[in-house]
């Protein structure tokens, strides 16, 4: 069952339709409601290796629908400390709960100052309104 459209206040956003939940020097990353809706039913998640590095604005994984492949862009730089095994096994979790059980990776931040450059919810909604 696909989720209702929403953009939580407590998250930070990247223009490529990714979100980050920052807690100290750890961030949880995922894709926004808009991104999963554009993709349709997700049937495969190709995650990065735990321990690998991700760089801000660069691809760290792929999500695929029946029809299309989409690269997932990292909103922040760091080291992958956890991959969401539930989403690897049940990729449709991304559609059902994009900000909760549908998270993709947890990373340890290498440069906390990058967080300030992300969009807040109002700025991200403004960006969606222009699309």
């Amino acid at each position, binding site marked *: 069952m696909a989720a209702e459209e929403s953009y939580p206040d407590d998250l930070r956003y990247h223009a490529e339709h990714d979100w980050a939940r920052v807690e100290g020097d750890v961030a949880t990353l995922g894709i926004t409601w808009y991104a999963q809706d554009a993709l*349709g039913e997700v049937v495969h998640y190709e995650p990065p290796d735990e321990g690998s590095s991700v760089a801000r604005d660069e691809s760290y994984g792929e999500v695929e629908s029946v*029809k299309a492949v989409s690269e997932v862009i990292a909103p922040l730089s760091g080291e992958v400390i956890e991959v969401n095994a539930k989403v690897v096994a049940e990729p449709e979790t991304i559609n059902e709960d994009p900000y909760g059980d549908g998270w993709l990776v947890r990373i340890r931040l290498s440069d906390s100052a990058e967080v300030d450059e992300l969009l807040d919810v109002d700025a991200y909604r403004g960006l969606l309104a222009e699309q």
Partner: protein
Amino acid sequence: MQTLRRTPLYERHAALGARLVPFAGWEMPVQYAGISEEHRAVRSRAGVFDVSHMGELRLAGDGSREYLQARLSNDLDRVGAGQAQYTLLTNQRGGIVDDLIAYRRGDDDYLLVVNAANVDADHAALAETEDVSDSWAYLAVQGPEALERLGVEIEPFAFREDVDVLGVRCLVAGTGYTGERGCELGCAPEDAVALWDAVLAQGIEPCGLGARDTLRLEVCYPLHGNDISPERTPIEAGLSWACALDKEFTGSDVLRRLRDEGPAERLVAFVMADAGIPRAGMAIAEGGKVTSGTQSPVLDVGIGLGYVPSALAEPGTEITIDLRGRPRRARIVRKPFYKREES
């Protein structure tokens, strides 16, 4: 800037919230509820597809049979009046210009239903035919409950004209592109909305081109432009069964030679052994290329079609697909991936 054409059902698709995409010069629905959901509806119940973008060519009059026999691969005399036949239009090199359904209305009266993207190429190769595409709207109603819900009886590959289907005058053909029982309904463009509404009122679910593609791939029906093309022959593509090589047609001498010598590559079906979804254009490490690929909604695994060197074409052979830089193993299997249960 090319203007996209719209079928008579465009407003209906938009009102249903379909995602509309350009396809072969037409603005077509790729999905309504979702590809997997529509796919399963067709496998378990019934779905309807707007295929009005398909082209129709007509040829009637003395010499029609002889003209088509010299240009289409299959033997029209294998079928009688009121029957339809899968056949190929070939070029001088034996390549496939198009795959199509020929309806034999009489000994010298034929209707050819062709791929939307190939109408012009087909008409050029079959100059004597008349392009009557604008006179037809087409719906494909497919699934185990399709005929029952429509109140239609038709045998596979038979067709009848001037049949009343839910109050609309139709050509009814026992054909389709999904591997399920069902039919295709041709009607006048001005009747298309009435027919569509009546079909939906029977609880038949609207389905888009996305599900049409995954359904046909599970049963290994080739898609022209992907799996077959003017550069590929029916011998390589496993379509010899649709070629009457005991008659003369365009490129038949090339095809007889290729059959005797054996083709360098063959179109095979494969299932992913590793995680990942194969896609058209991906390289196969042992040689060849993927021509179609998806996640099978019924089998829940990556499946694909591709050309491999003939020596590797045996079922059971392991191949390696280059998934955007990641080598992933796949196993060649017997076609098709999915077969419906005989009722």
